[in-house]
């Protein structure tokens, strides 16, 4: 991995440019103003931040559910000796977007993304049948914020 050295302007950009990017003809020029940068400078900094992987990308973040899909968070308590086998069974479903091992009795947490709500129930039923383990479904009820500030 490339070395990441961020100066105060980089941090300012990361923290302040998480939303509110304009849809004008020259959006980078418009956004550059608040940082006292030129359009070219802002574009060069964004290129560098993506190149060094400080940023995953720059652009729109789409909401899968609003695209007509359904998303939920699921968890399972997987016996340690079956962990690899169950991981393989769960990950084999293309509906499983992310899967994390976590330190808890519920030790496997994954996100299901389906084209419609019926797909969620069907996938959970399949995983339960395949693994013979209970899947706990945690659909979100309210969303309070998505974003992250990097400490300067």
């Amino acid at each position, binding site marked *: *991995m490339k070395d*990441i050295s961020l100066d105060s302007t980089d941090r300012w950009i*990361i923290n302040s*440019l*998480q*939303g509110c*990017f304009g*849809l004008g*003809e*020259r*959006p*980078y*020029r418009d956004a550059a103003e608040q940082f006292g940068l030129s359009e070219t400078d802002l*574009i060069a900094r964004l*290129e560098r931040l*993506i190149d060094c*992987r*400080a*940023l*995953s*990308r*720059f652009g*729109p*973040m*789409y*909401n899968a*559910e*609003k*695209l*007509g899909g359904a998303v939920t*968070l699921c*968890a399972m308590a997987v016996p340690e000796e079956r962990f690899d086998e169950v991981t393989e069974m769960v*990950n084999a479903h293309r509906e499983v*977007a*992310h*899967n*994390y*091992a*976590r*330190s*808890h*009795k*519920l030790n*496997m947490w994954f996100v299901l993304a389906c084209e*419609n709500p019926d797909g969620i129930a069907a996938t959970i039923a399949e995983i339960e049948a395949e693994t013979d383990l209970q899947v*706990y*479904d*945690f*659909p*979100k*009820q*309210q*969303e*309070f*914020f*998505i*974003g*992250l*500030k*990097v400490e300067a």
Partner: protein
Amino acid sequence: MQNFPHQLDDLDRKIIAATQDGLPLVPEPFEVVAQQVDAPTEEVRSRLRWMLDQGIIRRIGVVPNHYALGLNANGMSVWDVRDDVMGKLGKRVGELAFVSHCYSRPRHLPDWPYNLFAMVHGRKRAEVEEKVAVIARMLGEASARHDILYSTRILKKTGLRIAA
């Protein structure tokens, strides 16, 4: 909260497919997208505006990479919050700078008493714990108990994918 599927046409789907990995880093990015999807720039910008207004696009901007930024400790803090104050307190927790995702979700009693999930990032676990202590003070007696689940391994990670 209801989520209504939105009717997306071919052009919308093409625009999504062309931009989900990022906007072109050129002075007129929407011009480039317009060429890719074979539509007028004005149309592309107004479709993006509409998707923003509808919440189909959450936001347009930088997407930080927590791990590359040295935020290697990722703790899912979970809280048992009194239902009558969830709306008010959830919003305050979500506004904290170090919380990246914050949702209320159902309990699964008796195994799982927690109904508020707040993802906390830090350089080390000790840092995550300090931040979780801030949330604990903020919630006070409204939260009967809490826990932190650290991710120990990424088992799978794929992004949102939509076909053009």
